[in-house]
C-alpha cells in the first residue's frame, strides 16, 4: 500500500485500474477527460490489459458500455454534466438491462448558461434512472468508491450499474493524499467479473432487453429494479464491511460527524461537506451542538439511517448544491419526505448554495447554523435561501451594465466600417 498525492480524476482512474476493468468506452468532456487520458496511457504502456474505444458521443458511449457489460466483461466509463444528459436515454435503458458496470460522473453545472465548474444538477438528473449512486467527498473516497461500486453493482442481489460521483475542480483537479491499496488486496475484495447469466455466447442464445406489451410485465420488471436497488442498502453494509477488513477504511452509506448529541445538523452531499465538518468543529468550540450528515449512498436512499441519525435533532440545515426550478433543493425534498410523519421530526431549513462552483464560506455555514437554531426554537422554517451576497449582486449588476448597455460609440475600426 502506498500513500501519494492524487487528483480526484487520478483516483478514479486508479480505481478502474485496480478493478482490472476489461473495457473502457470513452468520450472526452471537461472536467472528466483526465480520467480517460490516464487509462489510455496505462493501456498504451501495457500496464492495464484493457481495451479503450472512443465513441462519437456519450449516448453511444453508454450504449457500448451497457452492451459490453451485457456481453460479460467488466466495463468502466466516465463522463460529466452535458455528457451525462446527452446519454440520459441510455442511462435509463442500460440500467434496465440489469448488466452491472461503473460510470464515474465528474459533476459540473448544466447549461444554460454553460459553465465548467461544479454543482450536482447533472448527477441528480440521473436520480431516477436505475443507476446506483455513490457520492464522494475526498479523493480517497473516489478511489475506494469505484471499488465499492463494482462489488455493489455486481452483487447477485443487485446487478445494476452504478454511478460514482465526484465534484469537478474541488476534487477532479485537486490533489490530496490517497492510499492506493495493493492489487492483491483489491483482488481478494473484488474478484474477476462473473457475468452469471448476463452474457452472449453461441451455445446459449439469449434475447436481452426485449420489449413488453402492457403494463403488467412492465410494472413487474421496473418494480423489480426498485427492489434490487433497495437490496443495495444491505449489500452496501456487507461490501463496506469487507472493504474495511481489506483496507482498514470504513465507508458507511450515511457518513456522520459529531451527531451523537447534536441539536442541529447540516445535511449535504459531496466535497463541500468537508467544509461543513470544519464548520461543525468550530461551532462545537463555540458551544453549539452541531453535527453533519452526509449521504454517501444517494440511490438507494438510506432513509432508515437518516431517520435514525436525525432522531432527537431539533433543526436541520439542508444545503443543496442543486436547484429544481419551481420547487427548490432536491435534497431538501428528499429529506422532507423521509422525515414526514416521524414524531418530533426536526425543523428543516433549506439553503441553495454552491451553484456553478460558487464557494460556501465559513461564515455562511455559521449563519446557516444560526438560522436553523432559531427555526428550531420557533418551530418555523424560514423561506428557502440562496447563498448569495449583496457584493455578488453588485458584481452581477456591473456585468449587466456591460451586457445591457445600448450599442455605444466605439473607436474600433471594424465597427466604423460596418456603419451605414
Amino acid at each position, binding site marked *: 500500500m502506498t500513500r501519494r*498525492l492524487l487528483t480526484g480524476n487520478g483516483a478514479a482512474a486508479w480505481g478502474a485500474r485496480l478493478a482490472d476493468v476489461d473495457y473502457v468506452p470513452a468520450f472526452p468532456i471537461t472536467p472528466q477527460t483526465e480520467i480517460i487520458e490516464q487509462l489510455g496511457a496505462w493501456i498504451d504502456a501495457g500496464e492495464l490489459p484493457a481495451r479503450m474505444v472512443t465513441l462519437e458521443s456519450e449516448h453511444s458511449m453508454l450504449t457500448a458500455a451497457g452492451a459490453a457489460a451485457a456481453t460479460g466483461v467488466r466495463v468502466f466509463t466516465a463522463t460529466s454534466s452535458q455528457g451525462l444528459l446527452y446519454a440520459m436515454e441510455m442511462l435509463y435503458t442500460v440500467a434496465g438491462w440489469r448488466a452491472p458496470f461503473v460510470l464515474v460522473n465528474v459533476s459540473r453545472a448544466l447549461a444554460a448558461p454553460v459553465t465548467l465548474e461544479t454543482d450536482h444538477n447533472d448527477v441528480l438528473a440521473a436520480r431516477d434512472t436505475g443507476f446506483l449512486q455513490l457520492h464522494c467527498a475526498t479523493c480517497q473516497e473516489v478511489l475506494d468508491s469505484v471499488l465499492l461500486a463494482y462489488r455493489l453493482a455486481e452483487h447477485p442481489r443487485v446487478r445494476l450499474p452504478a454511478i460514482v460521483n465526484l465534484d469537478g475542480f474541488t476534487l477532479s483537479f485537486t490533489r490530496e493524499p490517497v492510499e492506493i491499496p495493493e492489487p492483491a488486496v483489491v483482488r481478494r475484495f473484488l474478484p474477476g467479473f462473473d457475468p452469471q447469466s448476463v452474457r452472449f455466447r453461441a451455445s446459449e442464445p439469449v434475447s436481452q432487453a426485449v420489449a413488453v406489451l402492457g403494463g403488467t410485465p412492465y410494472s413487474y420488471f421496473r418494480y423489480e429494479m426498485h427492489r434490487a436497488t433497495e437490496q443495495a442498502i444491505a449489500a452496501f453494509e456487507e461490501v463496506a464491511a469487507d472493504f474495511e477488513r481489506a483496507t482498514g477504511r470504513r465507508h458507511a452509506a450515511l457518513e456522520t460527524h459529531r451527531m451523537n448529541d447534536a441539536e442541529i445538523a447540516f445535511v449535504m452531499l459531496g466535497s463541500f461537506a468537508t467544509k461543513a*465538518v470544519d464548520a461543525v468543529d468550530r461551532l462545537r468550540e463555540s458551544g453549539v451542538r452541531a453535527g453533519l450528515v452526509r449521504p454517501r449512498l444517494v440511490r438507494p436512499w438510506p432513509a432508515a439511517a437518516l431517520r435514525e441519525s436525525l432522531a432527537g435533532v431539533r433543526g436541520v440545515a439542508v444545503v443543496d448544491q442543486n436547484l429544481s426550478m419551481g420547487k427548490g433543493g432536491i435534497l431538501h425534498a428528499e429529506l422532507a419526505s423521509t422525515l414526514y410523519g416521524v414524531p418530533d421530526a426536526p425543523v428543516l431549513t433549506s439553503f441553495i448554495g454552491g451553484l456553478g462552483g460558487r464557494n460556501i464560506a465559513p461564515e455562511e455555514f455559521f449563519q446557516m447554523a444560526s438560522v436553523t437554531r432559531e427555526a428550531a426554537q420557533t418551530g418555523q422554517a424560514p423561506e428557502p435561501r440562496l447563498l448569495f451576497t449583496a457584493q455578488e449582486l453588485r458584481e452581477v449588476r456591473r456585468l449587466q451594465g456591460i451586457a445591457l448597455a445600448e450599442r455605444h460609440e466605439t473607436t474600433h475600426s471594424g465597427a466604423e466600417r460596418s456603419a451605414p
Partner: protein
Amino acid sequence: MYRIRFHGRGGQGMKTASRILGSAFFAEGFEVQDAPSYGAERRGAPIFATVRAAHAPILERGPMPQPGLVIVADETLLPMAAGGGVLSGMGERAVLLLHSAVDANTWKQRLQLACRVLTLPLRLEETGGRGFVGALCAGAAARLVGIVSREALEGAIRQELAAMPAQVLAANLTQAGEAYDAMKKHAGCVCEAPEAPAPGAVDANWIDLPFEAAELSAPDIHGALTSIQVRTGLWRTLRPVIDPERCSRCHWLCGSLCPDAAISPEAEGLPVIDYEHCKGCLVCVAVCPRHAIESIPEAQAREQEASP
C-alpha cells in the same frame, strides 16, 4: 495551515509549481491539498494554483481568500483581476513574492501594500522571456515557508518533472536551487495563515434575490463588440514593436495574419498595434518580410514607458 497561492499565465508552470510544493510538503510529512484553478484554459491567460499544507487532514476547499504567501510569476500580472485579483485577501502578515527585475521597496510603494514584499530577480535569459518558471517559483516558496528541506524540494521536482528530458530537469533543479538559496535570509517568514473568523463574528451578508424579468435576467448581451472592454493586452509577456524606418507599409500582411485583429494601418499606411488587445503571440514578428517588427519583454517596455 500554510496557504500558498501561485499566480501566472498558462504555460508558465504555476500548476507544476503548486504540485512541486505540494509534493515537497507531503514528503515532509504534511497533509496536502494542491489544485490549479482555471476556467477555459488558454495559453497566455492568467491562472492561479493553490497549496494548502497542515499536520491535520485538510477540510478547507476551493478558493483561498486568506493566503499566507502569494507568488507572482510575472509582474505584468499585477494589474489583472484574475482569480479575484493577484493581491486579493493579503493581510498584513502575508508575504508577496514577485518575480521581477524591479526591487521590492519600489513595488511595496507602487502597490501601497502593508504586507511584506520580496522579489526574485527576473533573469530573462533563463526563461526565454516567457518560459517555464514553475520549479523556480516552487523553490522560492519552499524556502520561504521554512520547513521544506532542500532534499524534499529536489525529490518533488524529480517526481513532478519526471517526464521531462534530463537536461531540462537538471536546469530546473538548478533554478529551483538558486531560488531556494536566494530566499535564505527570509526562510520561515511565511506564517500559517489565520483561521477563518469565529462563528458569529462575520455576517454572511446575504440578500434576497428578487424576481427580475427575462429581459434583464437571461444571459444575453444586447450589443456588439463588448469584448473590446477586456484588456487581453495584459496577457502579453513579450511585446511586438514596429520599426517605422524598416516597415514597408505592407500592413495587409501583419494586419491580416494577426489573430486578434489588433493591427490596423494609420492614414499613411504604417501599421499600428493595439496594445490593449495584442496578446503577444508574435505572429506579426514571424511574418514581417522586412523584419521590421521585433519583440521586447513586456516588463522592459513598461519600464521604458514609465520613465520616458
